[in-house]
Structure formats: structure tokens, C-alpha cells
């Protein structure tokens, strides 16, 4: 836990420097092609992180972030835009970044469910899939404006999730885990054997189109070609910012307190008037809504949905992001999503050994840093507020 008692607000400099270094590192890593370069960069990155942790620099950075969240969050947005501008032509890098942004939105949703309310959800990828299938169906058969499709995807994910409410509310711990695991397996098998939604063949998804501007065309401006993924990037970034602010405000409110209270001790919480059912439902639905929206947009980005995208294994990846990042800390989630999405993608030469290394990496983090990369600090309702 960070020392939140200090009356002196921390400086902004450590946060800005860390942000700058991280951005430069990402540009280098995303742009690197040669495997030797990528591996050296990864080793360098791990070394730098371990070294910084050893020197206690992390603490200063996280204090800086805690006290200047708005300003540093704004800088992070600028950094993301700069990154995208640098890679404006590079389709694949932009696709990766979009994947990171939307996966972050989904893990933010999981974070509300599990990180705050303690409601386990091992079917995150399934609800992501519900969103994606929603946009596939709506874009193909209806003329609902595509921007409206996104919240519809979220609502449908929340609705389908509410079918699980009864068992989820009644069970606890590992028993609750099995409910969502069963749902994840059921969902994928159902999609596979049911022809209406394309079966295992999946469905094509029409790309985003806002008032005649098709997101799937490259943008030619003054001799510069800008990748068609740029539109998706901007939209995903906006979505992530909105989700981030929402989750942040939720945490820093009485509702966040309620969720923490019921996660940590249901009996004590209900002795102080908490309606356990109401808040569990709220968290479960908000979480699925966020996951569904992210899925709906991702369906349009990928242009394709199929049952294999949304397996139990994918749900596990989402949960492992949550643990890696540090449960309950939105900043940690974004960082962990970057690691989990980008690193295996960059390590294509080790091809068949990727899963092995990934699994070993997660084991290492769980053993040596069980609270995640960026543990959640104590709640502060208004970061810069001092009594």
C-alpha cells in the first residue's frame, strides 16, 4: 500500500518521466522487427522494471500518479495519440494497439465484477463474444447506426449475463467459479453447433460506418496514407477513456465502498444495511456491459466473429490480466493488457513455445509479486483532497 498519509502531494515529475520512458519503450518494441532486437528489448524492459522496483522508484511513480491522476492521465492520452501518429501507416501495430485498448475496456469490466464486488467471472470472453456477435448480426441485417450498435452490444451482454444471476448470486467462491466456467464452455459449444449464428464458420462483420465515413478505408491526406485502423484507434481510445473514468468514479464513491465491503465480508456488510443482492447485480451488469461494448467494437475491427475467438482459454487470459496488473487498479490493468497482448505477438519466432513461456511468466509473477505489478492503493475519494 502506498503511503497516503503524506500531507505533501508528490511531484508530477516521476510520473511524467515514467510515462515518457514507457512510451519510448513501446515505440521501440512495437516498431522492432528483428527477433534479436525484440528479445533484447524485452530483457532490457524486465531488467529496468526489476531494477526500478529494487531502487524503490515505483513507489515514487505510483505516488505521483495518485496525486496527479488527471494531469498524468491527460499526458497518457497524448502519449497514446503520439504513438498512433508515429505508426500511422502501420496497420498491424495499430491493430495491436486497438486490441490492447479494447481488451483493457473488457478487463475494466471484469475488474468491477471481481476486483471490487468479488463476483468471479470466468466467462469474460463469452460476454465479449456476445458483444461481437451482436454487431455482426445488427450490422448485417439491420440499419441500426453503428455507433448505437456498441451500447446495444453492451446491453445484450448484460442481459445474457443476467440469465446467470440466480446461480451467481446464490453461490460463493469456487462454486461461483464453476457457474461461469460451465457457461463459458456451454457458450462456445452452443455457437459451434448452432447454425443460426454461422456455426463454427462464424460470421463476417461489416466495418464501422459513421455518417458515410467507412472505417475500413485508408485515409489519404496530402500524400500521406493513414491506416484505416486509425479510426478504430481513436474510437477505442475514446471508449477506454470513458470506461476508465467510469470505473474510477465508481471506485471513488459510496458504491465502490459498498462493493469492497461486500467482497471482503458479506455478513458484516449486511449487518450494516448493505443490500448484497442489489450491489452484486449492479457490479455484474456494469461489468458485462463494459465487456459487451468492447466486444461489439472489436467485432467490427476484426471483421470476423467465430466461436473459437471466445473460448474458456480466452476468458482465462482476461482473468490473468487482472491478476497480473494488480486487482482493482485500472492503471495496472492497462499495463498488464499491453504485456499480455503484445509480448506473445512480438515473439513470433519462438512460435510453438509461446504458450509455454507465457504460462511460465504468469507463474513467476504470481510467485514473486502476488499482488500484481501495480497493487491497488487505498481508496482516496478525491486524490488531491486534504483534510
Amino acid at each position, binding site marked *: 500500500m502506498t503511503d497516503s498519509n503524506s500531507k505533501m502531494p508528490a511531484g508530477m515529475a516521476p510520473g511524467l518521466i515514467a510515462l515518457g520512458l514507457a512510451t519510448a519503450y513501446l515505440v521501440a518494441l512495437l516498431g522492432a522487427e528483428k527477433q534479436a532486437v525484440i528479445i533484447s528489448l524485452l530483457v532490457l524492459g524486465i531488467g529496468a522494471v526489476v531494477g526500478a522496483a529494487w531502487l524503490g522508484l515505483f513507489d515514487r511513480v505510483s505516488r505521483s500518479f495518485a496525486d496527479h491522476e488527471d494531469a498524468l492521465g491527460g499526458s497518457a492520452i497524448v502519449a497514446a495519440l503520439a504513438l498512433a501518429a508515429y505508426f500511422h501507416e502501420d496497420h498491424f501495430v495499430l491493430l495491436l494497439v486497438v486490441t490492447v485498448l479494447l481488451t483493457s475496456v473488457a478487463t475494466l469490466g471484469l475488474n468491477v465484477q471481481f476486483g471490487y464486488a468479488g463476483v468471479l467471472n470466468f466467462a469474460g470472453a463469452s460476454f465479449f463474444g456476445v458483444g461481437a456477435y451482436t454487431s455482426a448480426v445488427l450490422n448485417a441485417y439491420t440499419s441500426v447506426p453503428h455507433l448505437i450498435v456498441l451500447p446495444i452490444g453492451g446491453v445484450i451482454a448484460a442481459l445474457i449475463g443476467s440469465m446467470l444471476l440466480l446461480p451467481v448470486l446464490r453461490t460463493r467462491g469456487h462454486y461461483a467459479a*464453476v457457474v461461469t466456467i460451465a457457461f463459458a*464452455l456451454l457458450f462456445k459449444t452452443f455457437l459451434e453447433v448452432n447454425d443460426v449464428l454461422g456455426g463454427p464458420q462464424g460470421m463476417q462483420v461489416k466495418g464501422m460506418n459513421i455518417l458515410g465515413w467507412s472505417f475500413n478505408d485508408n485515409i489519404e491526406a496530402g500524400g500521406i496514407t493513414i491506416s484505416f485502423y486509425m479510426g478504430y484507434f481513436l474510437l477505442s481510445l475514446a471508449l477506454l477513456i470513458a470506461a476508465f473514468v467510469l470505473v474510477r468514479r465508481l471506485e471513488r464513491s459510496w458504491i465502490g465502498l459498498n462493493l469492497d465491503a461486500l467482497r471482503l465480508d458479506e455478513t458484516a456488510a449486511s449487518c450494516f444495511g448493505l443490500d448484497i443482492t442489489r450491489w452484486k447485480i449492479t457490479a455484474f451488469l456494469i461489468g458485462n456491459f463494459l465487456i459487451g461494448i468492447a466486444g461489439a467494437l472489436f467485432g467490427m475491427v476484426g471483421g470476423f466473429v467465430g466461436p473459437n475467438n471466445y473460448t474458456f482459454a480466452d476468458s482465462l487470459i482476461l482473468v490473468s490480466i487482472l491478476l497480473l496488473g494488480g486487482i482493482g487498479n485500472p492503471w495496472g490493468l492497462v499495463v498488464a493488457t499491453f504485456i499480455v497482448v503484445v509480448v506473445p505477438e512480438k515473439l513470433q519466432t519462438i512460435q510453438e*513455445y509461446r504458450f509455454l513461456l507465457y504460462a511460465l511468466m504468469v507463474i513467476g509473477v504470481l510467485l514473486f509479486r502476488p499482488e500484481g505489478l501495480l497493487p491497488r492503493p487505498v481508496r482516496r475519494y478525491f486524490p488531491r483532497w486534504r483534510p
Partner: protein
Amino acid sequence: MDLGLFAQYTMNGLMLGMMYALVAVGFTLFFGVLDVIKFSHGDVLTVGSFTALATFVGLSALGLHSNWLALLAMLVVATLAMAFLGMLIARYLVMPLRSAPPLNTLLITLMLGTVLRECVRLFYPQGANPKPFPALLPRASVDIGEFNLRLDNVLMLSAGVLVIVGLQYLLNRTKLGLAIRAVAQDEETARTMGINFTGIVLITFALGSGLAAFAGVMNGLYYNEINFGIGLYLGVIGFAAAIIGGLGSIYGAILGGFLFAGLQTVGTVLLPFASAYKDVFAFAVVIAIMAWRPTGLIREKISERV
């Protein structure tokens, strides 16, 4: 339905249920002593059956041709090796995480499962391919109408029953069993009774993992084919079975295992238009059971101290 056909379905269901039950019992044992879910259990089963296969290949290379001896050697080697692996897992992955949230244990063992699975695939010779598993049991069979009663199935079922009865005996009638049950009841009391907590946990993990190896060999003998993915599926189903039965209860695990096998069989028989829906059906029933009985069919004895 034709009686012979019915008998055949029952036999299939029993074999399937026996394997699920053996896996589920392992989950329940681990949960009993440490309140953790060891999700790598299914993949320990895979490693166990590949160890047995490797033993067989090794013995054949040495010129041993007695089926019974080979089977005995396979069982001994696989069970001991997995028992040892189970102890290693408990000692270096599960115990260090005791103070962390239970989800961490679940995830670390899941990841370990991936490591084991990938290691089999990558490092066992041609590990990505399905492997033939020798049929070492007598293959005599009788046809009774549509029912093909095979001696090897009967032997395997009996062996499974024996193992479960033996386990019951061990838990209920021996000093070791008493110690395990004491630890499962309450760690602190067990410690004050002078029970070596760590030792008992390690032994329990060895026991459960040895069971998985046994189930792995049985799986190989039954299907005569093993592949690196068998554990993933068996692990998930075994876990679900232990849960619907009620964690911490051996009987619950056995009940859950046979129930799940029954659901799958009934799903195939009763859904003639699409037997592919049988897993959808089985998992939907699991969810419904959890809604109906949130702590499993055989309820855990929880007396929450307030």
C-alpha cells in the same frame, strides 16, 4: 429402448463416470486439506498416462512381453512419479501462495497445467500426435444382444471401485486418514494435536496426484489412445463434478462424476436431432444445479463463526 442397448449405454456411462469420479476425488482431497483448487490436476493425469506409456515403450525395448508385468510396472512408475510431482507442486507452487487470495492459487495451477500440457506436446517424442496406448487387459467379450460386455471394462470398473474403497478405508480407518481429516477440519487444532501440517498436505497431494495417474492409465487402457489434450477436458469436468457433488466430500465427488457422465449419455440418447448439444445440455444442468443447491448436492458442513 432395447435392453441390450440400455445396458451398453449404462456401461459406457459407468466407465466415463468412474474416470470423472477419480479426477473429482482428487479435487476434493486438495480442497479438503488446503481449501484450494489445484487446476493442473487434469494435466497431471495427462503426464501420468504419458509416463505410463513411456514405461511401456521402455519395457518393450528391454524385451519384456508380459502384459501383466508391464501393466504393473506402468501403474507403479506412473503413480509414484505423479505422487512426487504432486508433492513438488504443493511444496513450491501451492503452499507459498497460501496467504494470497484463492484465485491466485487457481490461476497459478491453471498456468502450471498449461506448462505441463505444452511440455508433453513439445518434448515428448511426436507429442503433438495422438498416441496409441497398448491394450494390456484380456480382450475377451460377450455379445448379449446389442450389449458388448468386455472383460477389460469389467476389470477396470472393479479396479476403480477397489481404489475408491481403499481410499475410503485409508481416510476413515487409518492414522494417516485421521491426520488428513483433522487437517481438513481445522488446521490450528491439527497443529496443536501435534500433526505435521506440511507433511500431511504433501502426502494428500501425493495421494490425489497418484489417483490422477491411475485415472490416466485407466483412460489409456479404455480408449487405447492418449493425447496431450485429454487432461484439459477431464480436469474441467472433474472440477465441475467435484463442485456439483459438494467440495470436501468424497461421496459428493463420486456422485458428481457419475452424474456428469450420466448427463452426457442421456444428452446423446435423448437429443436425437443433435447429439452435439449434449455438452450444452450437461453444462446447462450443472448451472441449474448450482442455482438450486449453491454448495453442491452433498452440502458442505459450514458453521460460520460470527
